[in-house]
């Protein structure tokens, strides 16, 4: 399966990104209790495959928009662990010099344009970026990632209407963990299938198990091919399991709003383990993977150390970057 759609080199590159995202967030989990990262963290453990897979199918010129749960997307697009930890530690070497924190990461020079902690608010921004592409005759797609909760906001519906009306090349990607904080989709949604609905807006569409990176890539390629053949928007819905609490570094299965998955399910729900399994099945040696993991871990440890030692922004930074 995997071999049908990914070269060995691609697979290893993807594995590296998966591990990069995962290890970064695991590092956060370890370090967070020291209260040095003074920013709320919405960890994406379990969902890394979605942004990594989607952006693997698109050229680096693709502009992306995201949410507060943006670490994997940031790392997939930038691999910039120095900036990442700098920002989380609130230091001057963060891309926003600590002003953004985890929830509003942005690195426009790498086309990771903007993220936001108000649910649904970057969805309309993608309209503008896609409009700008059309305006300038660019063929690029724009991606926008959002949670299943964002679909309930009016701005989402206004946006899909406009995207459909204008046949904008936007890939709407729903990172569907079935939860908005602690509330299940069935308690929030008056409809069963989002895909059915966007079909009535003449969207291209795709869906799949977001824990399966190979599937994410297969589905995304299918849909982006359609978008290139005949321009128009698309919606991808990828389900995944959120391993940790909504915000913060802990598990919270004892809170009672959902069940802890059985140990035998973890292998299916964890995109890193799952992709690793596939890589092994495809004949890749455990050592090659181990080497990647080591390299990535070292990179991360270095970045964390750099961030910890980096200076805070000076007081006058408070007043910089408001108006030009």
């Amino acid at each position, binding site marked *: 399966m995997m071999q049908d759609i990914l070269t060995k080199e691609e697979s290893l590159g993807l594995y590296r990104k998966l591990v990069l995202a995962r290890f970064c967030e695991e590092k956060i989990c370890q370090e967070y209790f020291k209260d040095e990262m*003074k920013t709320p963290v919405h960890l994406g453990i379990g969902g890394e495959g979605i942004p990594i897979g989607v952006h693997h199918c698109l050229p680096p010129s693709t502009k992306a928009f995201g949410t507060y749960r943006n670490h994997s997307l940031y790392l997939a697009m930038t691999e910039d662990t120095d900036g990442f930890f700098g920002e989380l530690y609130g230091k001057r070497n963060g891309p926003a010099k600590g002003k953004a924190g985890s*929830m509003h990461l942005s690195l426009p020079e790498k086309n990771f344009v903007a993220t936001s902690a108000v649910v649904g608010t970057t969805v309309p921004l993608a309209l503008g970026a896609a409009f700008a592409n059309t305006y300038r005759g660019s063929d690029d797609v724009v991606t926008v990632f959002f949670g299943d909760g964002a679909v309930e906001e009016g701005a989402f519906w206004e946006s899909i209407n406009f995207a459909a009306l204008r046949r904008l090349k936007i890939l709407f990607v729903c990172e569907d963990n079935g939860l908005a904080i602690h509330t299940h989709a069935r308690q929030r949604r008056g409809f069963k299938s989002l895909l059915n609905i966007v079909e009535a807006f003449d969207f291209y569409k795709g869906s799949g198990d977001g824990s399966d990176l190979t599937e994410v890539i297969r589905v995304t390629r299918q849909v982006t091919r359609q978008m290139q053949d005949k321009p128009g928007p698309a919606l991808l819905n990828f389900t995944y399991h959120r391993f940790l609490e909504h915000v913060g570094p802990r598990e919270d299965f004892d809170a009672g709003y959902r069940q802890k998955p059985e140990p035998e399910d973890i292998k299916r729900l964890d995109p890193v383990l799952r992709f690793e399994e596939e890589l092994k099945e495809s004949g890749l040696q455990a050592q090659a993977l181990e080497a990647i993991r080591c390299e990535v871990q070292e990179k991360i440890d270095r970045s964390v150390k750099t961030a910890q030692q980096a200076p805070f922004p000076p007081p006058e930074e408070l007043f910089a970057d408001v108006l030009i």
Partner: protein
Amino acid sequence: MTQTMMSYRDGLMLAAAHEMEADPDVFVFGLDVPDHKRIFGSTRGLVEKFGEKRCFGTPLSEDAMTGMALGAAISGLRPIHVHIRVDFMLLAMNQIVNMISNLRYMSGGKLKIPLVLRAVIGRGWGQSAQHSKSLHSFFAHVPGLKVVMPTTPQDAYSLLRSAVRDDNPVVFLEHRWLYDIEGEVDFEKIAPLGKAAVRKEGKALTVVGTSWMNVEAVKAAEILAKRGVDIEVVDVRSIYPLDEETIVNSVKKTGHCIVADYDWTYCGFSAELASVIHHRCFADLKKPVERLGFAPVPCPTTRPLENLFYPSAVHIIRTAEKMLGLSPTDLDGESFYSYENKFKGPF
């Protein structure tokens, strides 16, 4: 008299519970109201006691849910609509400013709007620009809305009860840090909307504060009292309608005034207070009114800048010293409120 020690969050929770007991038309709803975190504990126990009919969560749809609250209110129910952050009410500004504030007037007084919009404001933990606003000046600017900012557990309790019983729309704003404050609450005490409270008496200078700034102002007053400087602290409590008399009387007595508002100053409530005070105490003021508030920038995440963004007891002390011509107080031995030890991440 039934005085009990309790937290601000429990004051809020009990006010809702008591009103729900007293009136079957009262219900509480909003995003995440019934989940296990219960809006930082302030809706604890309600769904167990009153059931899902009267305490429920919603989809992420602030605009329509605010309209739904209005529709329920003009149908004779008394909704309490809760937002875990006031910033999200920006999605509902159209319903609030075009509809809720106008519908009674546009119906020639036929529609009655007994509606409470509760929202958490202010500083949490690295909350940054989108989870830290107060917005009371927006709501107070628009005729047709009442706006309340309780500071003490007693006021959380009494003012929420009064707000629920009020037949007008009331925006009820609660600072995140106040939730942990403990104090005596007397269930019999009624606090009518529209009255300020003198938190500390003094003769040298008046600090008029809103919400959390009263905690800072009382701290500043305690420190200055040690060197014999007597600050009066007036807690506005009701942003609209405004209790001008209490404020004006205090300033007429002291001749000096600092407005310490928990918001940006430009076109904010501090501007309203300063111009009312200047106007009414024109001959009594010995110095112009000083205004303290947020730095004129979006709220940054990183702690050192965040600390500079928010006004504090230190700002009040330094401003008061300048106004009164005093040398700077040595603050070395003083301990100020710091959430480093009391309030940890992630939210």
